């Protein structure tokens, strides 16, 4: 794994070809879980784990997988890692597992994972494929965390469940405290924040290019 290829993978996955802001993949979960910061963090970590280890497994087996069943093999491997994540969450952090509900299982349907396996892991060596999986997961996770930060802050007035806006507003002399923006908690709030994020990131990219 050459250092220039490593840097390229990191740059591509985190910024230039970010799965959420550039490829517009994984949007379902982006809208669904980003109203609560902690759920988003666990979802992001779960997806990173699944993407990285699925990529590693596919890359290790890339020379022996028959071409006509490669999609079936990829789905089988992704589903296995998702089930592992689900079992570990249920056994070790049952509270968070309960809070995430059906979204852990839905990692299987996240297009980012299948996309990276098909586009990268199936034609690259294990180490770089694993790195690509980790970076794709982080690229997805940081976008979601930024969105979740603002949605939870404005929607609930909290971050990680800790009240922020209400004490802040009261300390500034607003006796009624913080009025929660219900819009931010709902799915349209997710669309709104995602659009703002894509708009800002595209502008930064354009400025850099010019």
């Amino acid at each position, binding site marked *: 794994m050459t250092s220039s290829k490593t840097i390229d993978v990191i740059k591509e996955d985190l910024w230039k070809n970010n799965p959420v802001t550039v490829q517009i993949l994984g949007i379902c979960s982006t809208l669904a879980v980003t*109203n609560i910061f902690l759920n988003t963090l666990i979802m992001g970590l779960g997806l990173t784990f699944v993407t990285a280890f699925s990529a590693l497994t596919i890359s290790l087996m890339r020379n022996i997988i*028959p071409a006509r069943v490669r999609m079936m093999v990829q789905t089988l491997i992704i589903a296995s890692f998702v089930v592992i994540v689900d079992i570990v969450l249920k056994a070790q952090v049952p509270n968070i597992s309960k809070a995430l*509900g059906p979204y852990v299982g839905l990692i299987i349907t996240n297009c980012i994972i299948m996309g990276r396996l098909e586009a990268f892991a199936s034609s690259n060596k294990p180490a770089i494929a694993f790195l690509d999986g980790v970076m794709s997961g982080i690229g997805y996770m940081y976008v979601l965390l930024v969105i979740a930060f603002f949605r939870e802050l404005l929607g609930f007035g909290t971050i990680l469940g800790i009240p922020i806006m209400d004490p802040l507003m009261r300390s500034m002399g607003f006796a009624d405290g913080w009025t929660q923006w219900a819009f931010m908690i*709902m799915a349209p709030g997710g669309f709104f924040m995602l659009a703002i994020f894509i708009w800002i990131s595209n502008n930064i990219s354009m400025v850099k290019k010019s």
Partner: protein
Amino acid sequence: MKKFLFTISFMVILTIFFISILAFINESSKERIANNLEMQRYKSILYAFNILPDNVDENRLPSTSTINDIFWDEEKIEENFKKQIKKIRLPITPDQQKLLKNSFLSWKDSVDIFFQINKKGEIVAYGFPLKGKGLWGTITAFGVVSADFKKMVGIDFIEQVETPGLGARIIESEFKYFFRNLDLSGFQDKPRNLPAVIMVTKKNKTNIEQSTNSLQAITGATQTVSGVLAMLNSDLGFYITVIRDNEHIITYNLPKVLNLRDGYIGGYIGD
């Protein structure tokens, strides 16, 4: 042909390999997951009965906190549960069955009732499982009413698959707190066409401060909250009728239940 056989064999071997790994992980964590679920259920039931750890003041919990935010030692949960909560299975008569249209109990001939006893051995509250329809799926809850059936003691939502941040907020203490001391007189003397419990957009006082038959709704979760309300108005009335009609069975069996080490008659928790 050779290629075809290789493809089939490859898929079969790979599937068996991954299934074996999953089976091993599942088997090694099965007990722990079952224990977590049981503790969660005990904790929910205790919460609904308003039995909380000594150092927890419900009023001081953040409005978004859930039962998971209440730290409670597993041993204490089990100890409190076995000491204070007892269970009995009551028969459902054909007349009572008529009240059960569209209910999850509609095909059952008996029902499990939990009750809390005080230090004198008297029953102070009755608890029972509730089931209703949410936006995305079934909502399973545990509701508790006072022994005179006039007030609700509490509720906890054990299972739900509602939208996180919207309907799923039914599990937060802000919503559940309005069930404490909820007025249930509507189940005793209401005309049948009016709901006994209603939902309002905004309540200035909790039912502990001023007991009413209303709960505060959640913004953006109309269908979930409507499901909860429908569940209460159908199931609570039924349970109150069944318990009232079978009070003689409970009184007759009470000494026997109290003498049992785990305090259950006719079945086990969660069955």
